[in-house]
């Protein structure tokens, strides 16, 4: 026995090659009305890091940092492609991407993986709503490459579907297109009810779709570890109740109004918290909780960590009660 025994407790960090990426735009096109696909290569012409299916890229969009799913292959990729839906009323990230031109150089972090396929799954049931198709494209591509069984249920408004041509070629009859919302939901219910044992479910789409699918899966007794979700953005979360964050170490009190994240409120008071995705996926902004009950809305903490209630991802999560005491 030699594996990670006691001294693994204090592993030494080797230079973790994690520097930021500089990317140059090489191609732009409309994937569907209002959806723009952008292809990047490394600005210095070097190789790009590979990534598992379902990974996202955190782009610096002006003063914001947004996460977008990578739609291309992850094995020694020669370029990265993202598809971004223009949200005119959004917080500016999508508008930034829609203003990019060929030759522009942008900053990004290395791809991060928070929605990867499970290698032992007997079957992969992929459910995508609207622009939620982006991570499923890389899932489907990987499933095809390795001969994994999958079904892709794609709900979209007629005429507004991105990547249809590519998906049809890739998936053949494993792709089902659903322009009708009711039919789509009924079909999802049926697929959940009849899935063979050992199937894993992956869902990405707008919050109402996600909630409906998760609820149905729970009713049907799907074990949580077979259910994988990806929300596209924190903008999707409701504004939440106001609360007060009490900073135990520094003695301050920070008011967190409805519609403002705990992270933003802390930053507003000059409290610096490391962060990256700002949508509850990367795990950078974890803050220890000393008292109070966190309202977890992230996709990062494990079941056990949530239950422990001793830390909170402050970029999206809030407080169930009027105050949350933080070790800050």
């Amino acid at each position: 026995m030699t594996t990670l025994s006691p001294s693994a407790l204090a592993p030494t960090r080797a230079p973790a090659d994690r520097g930021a990426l500089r990317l140059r735009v090489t191609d732009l096109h409309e994937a569907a009305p209002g959806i723009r696909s952008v292809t990047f290569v490394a600005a210095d012409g070097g190789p790009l890091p590979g990534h598992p299916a379902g990974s996202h890229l955190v782009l610096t969009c002006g003063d914001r940092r947004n996460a977008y799913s990578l739609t291309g292959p992850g094995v020694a990729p020669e370029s990265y492609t993202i598809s971004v839906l223009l949200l005119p009323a959004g917080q500016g990230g999508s508008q930034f991407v829609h203003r990019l031109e060929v030759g522009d150089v942008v900053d990004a972090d290395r791809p991060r993986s928070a929605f990867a396929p499970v290698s032992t799954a007997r079957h992969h049931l992929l459910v995508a709503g609207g622009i939620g198709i982006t991570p499923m494209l890389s899932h489907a591509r990987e499933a095809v490459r390795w001969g994994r069984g999958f079904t892709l249920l794609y709900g979209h408004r007629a005429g507004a579907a991105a990547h249809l041509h590519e998906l049809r070629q890739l998936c053949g009859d494993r792709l089902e297109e659903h322009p009708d919302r009711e039919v789509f939901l009924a079909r999802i219910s049926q697929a959940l009810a009849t899935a063979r044992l050992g199937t894993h479910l992956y869902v990405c789409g707008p919050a109402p779709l996600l909630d409906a699918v998760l609820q149905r899966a729970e009713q049907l007794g799907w074990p949580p570890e077979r259910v994988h979700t990806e929300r596209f953005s924190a903008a999707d979360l409701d504004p939440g109740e106001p609360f007060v964050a009490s900073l135990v170490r520094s003695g301050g009190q920070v008011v967190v109004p409805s519609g403002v994240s705990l992270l933003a409120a802390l930053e507003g008071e000059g409290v610096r918290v490391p962060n990256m995705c700002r949508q509850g996926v990367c795990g950078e902004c974890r803050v220890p909780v000393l008292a109070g009950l966190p309202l977890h809305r992230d996709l990062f903490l494990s079941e056990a960590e949530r239950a422990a209630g001793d830390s909170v991802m402050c970029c999206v999560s809030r407080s169930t009660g009027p105050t949350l005491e933080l070790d800050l």
Partner: protein
Amino acid sequence: MDESYESDSAECLALLATDPSRCQELPHMRPACWDAMTFVMSELQEARPDAFNLERLDVDTWRWRNQLLGIEQEFVYGDDRTLPTDPLRFIAPQVQDDLVLLDQREGSLWADAGVVTAAADWSMRFDVGMSFLEIHGPVPRVHPAGVVDRAQEFLMRLQPGEAYRRTNWTMTVGRRLDTATETYPEWGPDRRLVLGQDIGTRLHLRVEVQHLVRLPSSGAVLFLIRTYLLPLQDIARVPAWRDRLAAVLAELPQDMADYKGIARYRHAAVDWLRSAA
């Protein structure tokens, strides 16, 4: 890479031929094995561009050249038919580290593939398919503190491209890299026979340098273990090493000494080191 590269490679190939069970792989691990193979190739190339070369010929077609072993192989990524053998088995004899692949799912890591020819009293055949927590079942002083859980949490958070390094040690009688459970009858009795004048030449400090890397495209964790053996007599030549090893051996708690399999001779080793001062 060091002067024993060619002989280590030959030893690994010979061992795999006589005991194919040293190479283990559960069926779902093939993508991770391809990922591990090409990762190791590009690391070798980076370390010694004069000796190793991995070239992309087309989207999925690559050519690998290993000048030290005279290997040249063209392959299509993910297509098993384009390699003479399985990807992990192909690359294992070309690198001096043992390779173990950990799959991550359902909140745990699983040792689902590996080629291990220099195991320190464990067995890939026995461990394959076990979870990280199960594998660490026998380690004393670890479980109560939740330490293994924390180590696992830590590893599960490694992102693609991140790597960690650690070392581990034990002692081995004779210059023997392979002390796997399978060959215990060959080396186990040596544990009792060391005492005497030749302790300085026969007893070796066995240091493992371990790297843990999140592989880029499969998301598996690759665990590389490189084993170095140094006889006590060489250690005694450097007074700081000699004193430190003597102190560590003297103070090691009994349960750890039992676990490392050195309980029988560690005090003799301490005496020898101290008298060599």
